[in-house]
């Protein structure tokens, strides 16, 4: 059955242009993951530049809202990294993360966001190689999926001024 004549098509946006690059936001905890990423850099490990890294003190600080905001603002992919369970600098910070992220994943799925776009991994300060491989893999997966362009989708569906970001100082 074709789209009802009674409404606009579900996704009326044109396909991605040839110069499109995946834009991925990465939330990394200072003590483990960010240090690990830093180590990858110092060791000159090569990985794609598509991840914009935001450093937080602990992965437990990563409110699931940060992830949905990133997608809502135009990220094509989101990465969350923290210390391994048992290694959290604040002892129990990542215990929150280990429950929040799986629950969030279910919501993202319900919203139609392909599961490959969101990655949650534990990366220790010594795992620079793991980090660089992770970024390469994620970037490639997102590249294959194409742009998400959530703001464009909402605009096309008639949402007036985009998202409510008052809580974040907008």
């Amino acid at each position: 059955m074709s789209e009802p004549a009674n409404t606009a098509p579900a996704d009326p946006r044109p396909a991605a242009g040839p110069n499109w690059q995946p834009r991925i936001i990465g939330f990394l905890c200072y003590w483990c993951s960010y240090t690990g990423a830093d180590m990858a850099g110092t060791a000159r490990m090569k990985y794609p530049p598509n991840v914009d890294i935001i450093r937080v003190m602990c992965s437990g600080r990563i409110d699931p809202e940060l992830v949905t905001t990133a997608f809502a603002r135009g990220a094509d992919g989101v990465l969350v990294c923290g210390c391994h369970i048992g290694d959290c600098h604040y002892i129990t910070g990542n215990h929150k993360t280990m429950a929040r992220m799986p629950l969030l994943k279910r919501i993202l799925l319900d919203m139609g966001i392909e599961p490959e776009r969101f990655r949650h991994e534990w990366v220790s300060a010594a795992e620079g190689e793991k980090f660089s491989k992770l970024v390469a893999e994620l970037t490639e997966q997102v590249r294959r999926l194409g742009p998400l362009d959530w703001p464009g989708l909402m605009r096309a569906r008639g949402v007036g001024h985009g998202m409510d970001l008052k809580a974040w100082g907008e």
Partner: protein
Amino acid sequence: MSTNPNNAAPVAKLKIAKYWAASCGGCDISLLEIGPNLLELIKIADVVFWPCAADFKYEDVRNYPDGYIDLCFYNGGIRNSEQEEVARLLRRKSKSLIAYGQCAVDGGIPALANLKTVKGIFNASYHDNPSIDNPAGVEPQPVTPSEYGDLEIPRFYPQVLRLKDVVPVDYEIPGCPPQSDRVWEAILALAGGQVPLQNRNVKVACYDKAVCDECKLEKRNVRIKEFKRVHTSIPEPGWCLLEQGYLCVGPATRSGCGALCPAAGMPCEGCYGPAGDVVDQGTAMVSAIASMLDARTEEQAQELIDQIADPTGTFYRFTLASSHLKARK
């Protein structure tokens, strides 16, 4: 336009209007629930547009001067073209436009449709349905030619929008429906000039803190050991339902209702939307509930999470259109 049987000098009464978009009528009923205060209301106000209860037409509203209506309560979400059209009309004609009730403020329950596609909705309603007899696959159309002329019905929108998605809104009264005591307080404040008629998305007729603040159930500060469903177990009376494992969305929900549902033995379903400055109720609840689990390993956490049957529908039941993502792709 006040009733003036003695031909005395006219007293300027407030002009109020109430419109319903994609709504259920509960908000209109809730306004009536101010009970004896109705008599006070009609002393200070005249209704100039209220399709469900009074007999003014769209044409009357079009003929009013701009800003003629003092207080306009708009309830219901914006699901079709007519509802948006009327929102824009009422915005022009009103000094103060108030989003009344969850549907207008955050999308409400109709916004759960944002988890489905329009095609899916039409399919379930008009095609794939046990009692449907529709071999020709007929669907409602914005325009249908007839022997005598075109028949029109509004265009169904791709997703439910909130009032503030299409027009600037002065005040917001959350709740499904808003509790009448709070509503009356808000009306008095507006009528009495204690707050300006013009503002921007200011929440009224509610409190700032979470429902837990109003809830009388005992909080024992224990972690959740398992999740339960209301029909397969009996809660211990007097003890916090969430701590017992019932999916009470109270921590992520604005108070002002009096925590009526937990008092009746049922978990809060979140009908006042997010508390404080929170914008996205669902992620707030994810954050809260994940912090309460009795889990020390990822496996334990996953086991508990797997017991939550429907996080999206439970945490966003009344606020999907206000979430950051708003609708499924």
